[in-house]
């Protein structure tokens, strides 16, 4: 606008600047939320975003909020979170690589039905089935032998429910990855007399490993973060995971000790942020390939 910059020039440069401004403003709440978490977890109190001492003067930096790391109360929940998340990774991985292969590459009657069912399930949200699943889990818990591991109020039971909820996305994504594998090698293997299972295991599976890895990271994150299902289907601290532990910590004292709660929250975020930084592009792709929508 100033000096020699012509009208044409102005037109080109103003658009992006407004774009940056809108985008910059839009992320403020996200950045403020994270800033609070970080500041609060290392200070005695906070006033807005300002760290303060107990009597409200600025300052008050401390590591005391992290004492839960040494007193060990958090490790049971961490272990349960890890077991649930890894259980989900293994479960979703096995079931969707098997099923996704069948719907991508085997011609059989009813294939179209199975495919539309997968799509249908993607749209069909499981949150509304929680009441009935409660009864299914109790029935599973009453079965002999395995009941102790997969029933109501067990880590296995919670993991099993979450595997099922993740399954439509997993099947759909793996089908997509299998669709992109060339047919030639598999055809050669089958003509040489390999069974379908061997062809899957030795020829096709290695070629979808990058896709499976991305799905696994995605599944781990959703298992690690899960709140509603562990909260609904576990009783007491023995089987609860980190989010439920944190939720109980918030309600435990009144007023809540927000600074300690923030530290536990940040502790829980560490692996998630690690994956996020390492695998940004892959994660973005998964979110667009699948139809997983929180809200």
């Amino acid at each position, binding site marked *: 606008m100033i000096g020699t910059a012509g009208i044409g020039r102005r037109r080109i440069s103003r658009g992006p600047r407004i774009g940056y401004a809108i985008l910059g403003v839009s992320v403020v709440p996200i950045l403020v939320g994270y800033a609070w978490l970080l500041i609060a977890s290392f200070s005695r109190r906070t006033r807005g975003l300002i760290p303060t001492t107990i009597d409200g003067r600025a300052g008050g930096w401390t590591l005391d909020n992290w004492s839960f790391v040494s007193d060990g109360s958090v490790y049971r929940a961490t272990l349960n979170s890890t077991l649930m998340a890894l259980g989900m990774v293994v479960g979703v991985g096995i079931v969707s690589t098997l099923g996704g292969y069948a719907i991508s590459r*085997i011609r059989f009657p009813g294939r179209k039905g199975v495919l539309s069912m997968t799509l249908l399930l993607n749209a069909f*949200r499981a949150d509304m*089935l*929680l009441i009935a699943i409660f*009864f299914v889990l109790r029935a599973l818990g009453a079965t002999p032998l395995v009941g102790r591991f997969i029933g109501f109020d067990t880590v296995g039971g919670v993991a099993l429910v979450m595997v099922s909820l993740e*399954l439509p996305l997993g099947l759909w994504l793996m089908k997509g990855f299998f669709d992109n594998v060339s047919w030639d090698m598999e055809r050669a293997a089958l*003509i040489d007399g390999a069974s*379908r299972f061997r062809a899957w295991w030795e020829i096709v599976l290695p070629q979808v490993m990058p896709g499976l890895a991305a799905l696994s990271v995605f599944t781990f994150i959703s298992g690690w973060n899960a*709140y509603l299902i562990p909260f609904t289907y576990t009783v007491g601290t023995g089987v609860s995971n980190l989010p439920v532990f944190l939720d109980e910590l918030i309600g435990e004292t009144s007023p809540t000790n927000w600074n300690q709660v923030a530290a536990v929250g940040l502790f829980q975020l560490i692996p998630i942020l690690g994956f996020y930084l390492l695998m940004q592009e892959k994660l973005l792709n998964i979110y667009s390939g699948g139809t997983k929508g929180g*809200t």
Partner: protein
Amino acid sequence: MATVAEDSPTRRRRRRLAAVGFLTPAMVLVVAFYLIPAVLTLILSLTDLSSANFTEPWNFIGLDNYRRLFGDAFFPKILKNTLFYVFVTLGLFNVGLALVLALLTTSIPRRAGFFFRMLWLLPRITPSVVYVMMWVRMAQQPPFGIFNQLAGPFGLEPENWLFETPWLFVILTNGFVGASFGMIIFTSALESIPRDVITAARVDGASGWRLIRDMKIPLIKWPLLFVATYQTMSLLTSFEYILLLTEGGPGLFTTEVWALTSYKRALGTYFGNNQWGYGAAWGFVLVVIGFLFSLLYVKIFRFNQLVKEPLIE
């Protein structure tokens, strides 16, 4: 190719067996955690099963739960809340802001656009308990609340904004998670518009707003429709963030939505006991809506194109 064309009955049978083998684990889970629960929700909704009588045989009471549901004094309020919540969040964030973000991040340099999209993905991958905690602290009364601290210099009376404007925070909390889904889908749709189509329009004199309205939006109308229908369903059935943020309060049913009512009646101890039958009636209405929605997808998203026949055997 001879071996491929030959399709003897034995081969066909073996192939069928293989398909069954590969699909069995998935099918077992689908039956146990989708099919049976869907039917069971219907059955439960016809009983008066609750934690008071669950040791006795199930007592079928016909459509009484549904009569009670529609006659509930708070039914109009809950229905209104649900519609308000779903369509305002959908319009402003899950589709509206998602589209704005996708248009903006694709019109600035690639790396910068990617950076902003990654920031917007953060709420989605943050554990819900931690994420809601951030919003609670932003809204809180002085001296803790961040919003009060930032708005104070502008002369705004300090309040606990979660109590003053609960809907604002319910919608913000859900919207900041919801927007990233549409953003990602729209971005990949926008990026797949051929460059020369845009260039040609530019040469013809189309600029800025006209380019968006007459070119870009019509070209991504399928993704738009998909995100709109999919997210309607998501918003209608998910209640986790509301449960954590307000539990349907403050006060009586202020931010209570349909799915949350179902959950609280059946699985919360909110009303003294777990009314599984009554909660299931609320839930089954959603199951029916969900089923109708999923049929809609299969119909409108040109499903047959997705079903390519496998090339071998």
